[in-house]
């Protein structure tokens, strides 16, 4: 007996179609918004109104637009930072912690030299913020390079340690005595504050991201070191064969990855908060991971995608007033990543129809063996 039917199998395609690179991100965004809409409807909201309000809030006014740019600043930095590590297949999930440590180091400079409007305060904050963020990432990079200790878990655990460390400072020794017992430090003096654009909160940190995106591109695609990173990320076996020092590069890449995330922290305290405080980052380190992946680790795409994500976050903030929890944004981000992951496969695989037939048991023969 043979049963005929139809079955679908997933097969590898020889060459990915180039149109997929454009179609998939966009259809992923639409699908994620649709599923998000379903959740909104289920919880009794008019999704169309909510989405419109979010869009208007983020891009519809000068204020909204400026706030979107304000969010873009740290997000660009964290996504560039983690993207550098991802380039080498190093899963730096610790961007959040590296951001906090960068903020901590920058704050130390600002608080140690109060009133100092000396020219070197700002460069020192930048350098120290990057250095400490980088060292924080180097911490898990060393055991990874030497013994292959899973960096996903170690970088992630260090996030919690960094956040508690900052909490310890702002609730304890660094608490502003005139701060009505709020968990924040004293306000920085003017020399430690990044200049901002007019009346908006957009600050000079914007240039960090733009400059670093260019540097990122040049380093990855134009330098010998960047070439080593690309080769190692794509094929560690070939890297070894070509005589590339993989261990050294693991440590270097993680250091710079952390340094860039640290710079994000520095720019937040110096450009936005003007002090160190509890809950400094609403998860910029994690959102950076999504942006990096969605942008296929391309620095210029990162800048564009970050702008959209900044808008998403501002929009989410705006509609909170009408009772939509801000966590909807996090949910949408997760959904987006699902669809992109699923869609990515369609670039490399195709669904093929095959006839499925059922096998029958072997006919009874003599089983005298």
């Amino acid at each position, binding site marked *: 007996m043979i049963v005929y039917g139809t079955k679908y199998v997933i097969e*590898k395609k020889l060459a990915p179609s180039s149109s997929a690179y454009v179609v998939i991100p966009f259809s992923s965004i639409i699908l994620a918004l649709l599923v998000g809409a379903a959740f909104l409807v289920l919880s009794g909201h008019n999704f169309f109104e909510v989405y419109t309000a979010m869009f208007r809030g983020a891009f519809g006014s000068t204020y909204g637009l400026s706030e979107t740019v304000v969010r873009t600043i740290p997000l660009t930095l964290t996504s560039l930072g983690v993207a550098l590590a991802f380039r080498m297949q190093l899963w730096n999930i610790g961007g959040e912690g590296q951001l906090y440590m960068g903020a901590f180091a920058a704050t130390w400079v600002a608080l140690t030299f109060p009133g100092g409007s000396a020219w070197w305060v700002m460069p020192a904050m930048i350098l120290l913020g990057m250095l400490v963020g980088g060292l924080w990432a180097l911490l898990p990079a060393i055991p990874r390079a030497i013994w292959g200790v899973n960096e996903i878990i170690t970088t992630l655990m*260090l996030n919690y340690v960094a956040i508690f*460390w900052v909490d310890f400072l702002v609730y304890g020794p660094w608490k502003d005595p005139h701060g009505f017992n709020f968990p924040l430090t004293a306000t920085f003096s003017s020399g430690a504050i990044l200049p901002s654009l007019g009346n908006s909160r957009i600050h000079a940190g914007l240039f960090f991201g733009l400059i670093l995106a260019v540097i990122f591109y040049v380093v990855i695609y134009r330098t010998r070191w960047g070439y080593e990173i690309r080769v190692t990320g794509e094929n560690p076996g070939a890297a070894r064969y070509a005589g590339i020092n993989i261990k050294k590069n693991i440590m270097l890449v993680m250091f710079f990855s952390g340094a860039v995330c640290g710079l994000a922290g520095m720019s937040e305290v110096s450009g936005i908060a003007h002090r160190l405080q509890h809950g400094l980052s609403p998860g910029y380190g994690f959102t950076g991971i*999504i942006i990096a992946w969605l942008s296929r680790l391309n620095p210029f795409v990162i800048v564009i995608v970050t702008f959209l994500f900044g808008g998403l976050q501002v929009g989410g903030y705006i509609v909170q007033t009408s009772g939509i929890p801000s966590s909807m944004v*996090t949910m949408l*981000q997760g959904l987006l*990543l699902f669809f992109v992951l699923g869609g990515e496969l369609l670039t490399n695989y195709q669904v093929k129809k095959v006839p499925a037939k059922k096998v029958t048991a072997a006919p009874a023969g003599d089983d005298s063996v």
Partner: protein
Amino acid sequence: MNQEIIVAILATAITAGTPILYAALGEVLAERAGILNLGVEGIMLVGAVSGFILALHTANPWTGLAVAMLAGGLMALIHALLTVTLKANQVVSGLALTMFGTGLSGYLGKAYVGKPLPVPFKVTPIPVLSDIPVIGPVFFQHDPLVYLSYILVPALWFFVFRTRAGLHLRAVGENPAAADSMGINVFFIRYIYVIIGGMLAGIGGAYLSLHYVPSWMENMTAGRGWIAVALVIFATWNPANALWGAYFFGGLDALGFRLQTLNVMISPYFLKMLPYIFTIVVLILVTKRNITNHIGAPQALGLPYDREER
């Protein structure tokens, strides 16, 4: 410290370790099948919030638990679909799951933040056993979910190492091509255990909101899902070892809490760091030990299986 305090700390270690234990047991199963699920944290949160909401509305923690398992299974199903069928990157898919779970749980739980649960799982001392000095109060004055885990750990150990189905599970994680050539359905097995793993993580989350706290707070898992993932390496993919690891981390939690109440001159923020720092230290030590003892992850962990790959 006197005996009473030590007993109290040990008992709390078990309660604090139980949610991690459930999640780690689930992750052991998924990883034994070759699928790395980094979405545990997100699954636990969804389990915690859905369990809480249902328990509150039905006034019955058991319905809450059932729904938490269902929700955990559904969350894991997404991961299975992406990684097994669509062969997506398991790391990124897991991160997406955690992100999604964090958002979803926050969204669903917005209206429930801080509400007390009138019907949590109650401490039910086991007669006779609970009267044994020291042992009794440490092990047998707990809630039903702790007792369930006492049974689950040896049962899972037996299942994984002593049964036919367990053999097939391990085969799929070690060498899917070999398992496939012997007629084992690799895809089906991977789906099943990723989903069961998600259900166990769902229980872990529900334990927090239905007994440990018992209430709903955003991000209430506070990294326990990640600790569970690390614990799997510590446990060398063995359910029995996961028990000790979970209680060890539970103990750190309990110790931090106790020391605070005893006015020890350590900042509570440093005490809160302890479990995370220990996770890192333990992970480094265990990775080194596993290298020297040639104990490794299931050979095919993290790799998609593709039969026609040439």
